[in-house]
């Protein structure tokens, strides 16, 4: 803090617990932080670390079972925690405003957008109905919504996710607040929409003077948006400092581990193993005498277990709550982080998909989720599938695994024609093709113990009749996904997200599959767990020579894991080829836009952002010609609108679907990077 500045928000010794029956569980533990006027402060941490509780405390929106045990939150010279209700009501929405994670639920579905924004002006500024509507219109213009006059008359459900979030931001900024709390404002949004919203927030910061408390689990976003960053772990601020310094020279082992455990764009499974954080978060409300991170820390010593570290000043404005912060920069990657042995390539086509179409019929309209997709998956290969929501990735996976019937096209597996009907009847086919689902919470029956779940899989997929055989194989299977025997007796609810996903993986691998469809298998998990699961998937693939179709919206994860990649847009495959070729020019303009939308931690080199104009068209009414032409930054003209683009090849088995030939595209895309 510069001398003499009065912080916009000052949190001092904040301690919050949640009441659970007779017990008080500590959630926020002696938190001190401040936000300077006009500054964006990022608060990062994994789920359950208390980020949202801090945001709620600042707005004093805490749930009824939350107890503020001590501390002050000073804002505008007053303690928010002791402010009178009427005072608070005037402040909220006027001097402080909040944007929540899901824009869809923060807007009133039965009110037109215009009336909702106007309400803010009428309530806080006492404007007449007409004045307020005009002000609302101006505000929508400021958040760069196209055609604000039309949007005013819309209901929230008629807007896209990105537009909804713009409207929410417009409402939050309507009264020019001094403090804006953004709680995971882009988490539910697609990558390209997320990029748009972040751009908007960045631009608006120049026009408005609000201090920002930016809460996110995404370090890349925080690095981009904020000047200063605090890292929360188990309700304690364990490190705080200027964004750039914190992310390049972390001085707390946890921050360092977080930075190391996610795959970064450019990392590959065959050169580098991911470095997961061992152990798990201490349970909510646990009484910890020493350092909260000691159990998982590679440099923890006796002192750490009984002496709680203060926030040591390690540099100007940079503090780390670690007794041994000097040693952090020298922590080597954990032993496990050595690259795995070179993998044998088997070659040969395992799965051949030819012009696959999946149409969902419903009264009134048909929706073609997958519109003629062709690709091969070879033996022992990982085929990555990327695209935004609505691109047809999951429909494709469900069709391949036989959960839904293909409408048209041909699928060949091990050289033989395959259909959903065959998969239902043929046990061998079912055994050979399995799926891992996105959300381990719903993929396991909450009423069955792990043992029961695995036994059914072994019985039906592994063809194991006798109990003893099943029992033996079960232990083997459990240990192959690093589950402890004691986990077998538990029900899914008693397991953490990572352990649940291990059970789901074990279940899919029960019958020695040949092809496993992984539908966003790590996107519901915390990063520290994500790394361990990705390592496991790599190991299993190497050990058992399985092929994966790996679906993810996270390009870095796909790039890390996949040998070849397909990019989907509105039911079309637009870009297919070896991972490196797809990620480098020339590639489809959509792939280019996706890559540029990734929030980067690389602060030195600003990368150009390729903006996609307009909303994602509905798959029910796909655009004519090239499906991407409505949003394409490289739109050529009528040819794109009227003619379906041909497949272009730039050699090495990389093909993309575009009217621009490879040489021209390469030149244009490389020029953009300069």
């Amino acid at each position: 803090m510069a001398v003499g500045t009065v912080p916009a928000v000052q949190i001092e010794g904040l301690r919050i617990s949640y009441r659970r029956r007779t017990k008080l569980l500590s959630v926020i533990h002696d938190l001190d932080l401040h936000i300077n006027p006009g500054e964006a402060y990022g608060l990062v941490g994994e789920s359950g670390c208390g980020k949202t509780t801090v945001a709620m405390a600042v707005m004093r929106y805490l749930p009824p079972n939350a107890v503020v045990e001590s501390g002050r939150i000073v804002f505008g010279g007053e303690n928010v925690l002791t402010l009178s209700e009427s005072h608070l009501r005037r402040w909220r929405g006027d001097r402080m405003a909040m944007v929540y994670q899901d824009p869809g639920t923060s807007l009133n579905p039965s009110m037109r957008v215009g009336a909702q924004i106007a309400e803010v002006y009428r309530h806080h500024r006492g404007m007449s109905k007409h004045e307020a509507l005009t002000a609302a219109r101006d505000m929508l213009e400021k958040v760069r919504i196209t055609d604000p006059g039309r949007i005013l008359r819309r209901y929230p459900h008629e807007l896209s996710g990105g537009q909804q979030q713009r409207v929410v931001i417009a409402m939050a900024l309507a009264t020019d607040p001094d403090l804006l709390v953004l709680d995971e404002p882009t988490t539910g949004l697609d990558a390209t929409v997320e990029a748009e919203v972040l751009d908007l927030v960045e631009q608006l910061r120049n026009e408005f003077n609000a201090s920002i408390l930016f809460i996110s689990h995404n370090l890349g976003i925080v690095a981009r948006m904020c000047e200063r960053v605090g890292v929360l772990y188990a309700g304690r601020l364990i490190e705080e400092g200027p964004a750039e310094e914190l992310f390049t020279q972390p001085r707390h082992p946890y921050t360092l581990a977080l930075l190391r455990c996610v795959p970064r764009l450019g990392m590959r499974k065959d050169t580098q193993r991911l470095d997961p954080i061992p152990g798990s978060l201490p349970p909510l409300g646990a009484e910890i005498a020493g350092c909260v991170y000691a159990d998982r820390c590679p440099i923890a010593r006796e002192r750490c277990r009984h002496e709680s570290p203060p926030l040591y000043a390690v540099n100007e404005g940079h503090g780390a709550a670690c007794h041994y912060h000097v040693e952090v920069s020298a922590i080597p990657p954990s032993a496990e982080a050595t690259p795995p042995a070179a993998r044998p390539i088997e070659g040969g086509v395992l799965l051949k998909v030819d012009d696959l179409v999946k149409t969902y019929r419903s009264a009134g309209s048909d929706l073609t989720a997958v519109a003629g997709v062709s690709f091969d998956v070879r033996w022992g290969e990982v085929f990555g599938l990327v695209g935004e929501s609505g691109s047809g990735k999951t429909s494709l996976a469900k069709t391949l695994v036989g959960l839904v019937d293909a409408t048209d096209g041909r699928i060949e597996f091990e050289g033989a024609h395959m259909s959903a009907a065959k998969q239902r009847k043929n046990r061998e086919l079912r055994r050979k093709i399995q799926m891992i689902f996105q959300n381990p919470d719903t993929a396991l029956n909450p009423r069955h113990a792990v043992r029961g779940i695995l036994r059914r899989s072994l019985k039906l997929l592994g063809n194991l009749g006798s109990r003893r055989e099943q029992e033996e194989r079960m232990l083997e299977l459990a240990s192959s996904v690093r589950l402890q025997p004691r986990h077998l007796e538990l029900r899914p609810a008693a397991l953490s997200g990572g352990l649940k996903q291990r059970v789901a993986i074990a279940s899919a691998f029960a019958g020695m599959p040949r092809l496993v469809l992984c539908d966003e298998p790590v996107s519901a998990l915390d990063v520290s767990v994500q790394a361990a699961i990705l390592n496991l998937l790599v190991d299993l693939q190497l050990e058992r020579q399985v092929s994966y179709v790996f679906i993810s919206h996270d390009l870095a994860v796909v790039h890390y894991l996949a040998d070849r990649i397909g990019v989907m847009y509105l039911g079309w495959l637009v870009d297919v080829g070896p991972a490196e070729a797809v990620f480098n020019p020339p590639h489809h303009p959509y792939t280019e836009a996706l890559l540029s939308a990734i929030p980067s931690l690389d602060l030195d080199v600003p990368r150009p952002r390729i903006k996609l104009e307009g909303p994602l068209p509905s798959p029910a009414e796909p655009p004519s010609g090239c499906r991407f032409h409505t949003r394409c930054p490289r739109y050529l003209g009528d040819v794109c609108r009227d003619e379906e683009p041909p497949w272009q090849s730039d050699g090495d088995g990389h093909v993309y679907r575009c009217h621009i030939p490879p040489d021209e595209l390469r030149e244009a895309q490389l020029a953009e990077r300069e």
Partner: protein
Amino acid sequence: MAIDRPDQASVLTLHEPASAMPPAGPLAARLSRRERYAELARALMRSKTFVVGALILLFWILDAMLWRVLATDDPSAVDPTATLRGPSGAHFFGTDDLGRDVFSRVLAGAESVLTVAPAATALGIFGGVAVGLLTGYYRGLVDNVVMRVIDAALAFPLIIIAVLVLAVLGRSTLNVVLVIGIVFTPLVSRTVRSAVLVEREREYVAAAKLRGESGLYIMVAEILPNITAPIAVEATIRLGYAIFTSATLSFLGLGLRPPSPDWGLAVASGRAFLQIAPWIVLFPALALATLVIAVNLVADGLKQVVEE
């Protein structure tokens, strides 16, 4: 000094599940089965609605089993010398037109209600769960046809159907149970079906299909255990209606036959003396009311706890 510096464009995503409200979060989830039941029991005990309802219900259940001990008189003993007597020390609730002790008849009347109603409810729940599982899981044509038939059936007031069927089948305790059970089946099936529609879309059902489980296994072993809460709530609500319906049928003369101390019957036969001896109707009616209210309180309490 080799710090692992992010040298390339980096995506660092600390993914977390969408809902992250601490109090209901991991802690609530990490309970074992026994703890969960204990937790449920504690929550129920904290609900005043539930406790009051359960106490009254418990009283009537004990009474239905022990009325032979509790009754001061033989409920069917006729005493021509003491007809239409008002409440007194000898007859707490007075006597009816045949000189029978109303207090003892009220106590004894619980037995028939608490036999017929739970049996009918069980039948209705069983049928409703079967129909709801089949239609909800398989959807398609069968679902459409069955649901339209049910819509049509529900257009008739419940009691009219019951009267019609009993008029044809004849009156007996078994027939009353059957009729109420059958009439409840479509009602229950709708609740069950809507719960099944939610569950069948969950990924564990897809996973079960992928490992080749049969439809029957998926319905009974995968889906059913996950919809017990709405079924339990539905069962208590239905029990209340069943008590009421069986009393109504008795009142209309379609249920149990006269010497039985059934409450509905008592209200029906005492009606004629309402002006001169209101206690003959009043006490059985009050008994019925407390029982129905008790069951509804239990249902409400259960519903609140389950929905939390």
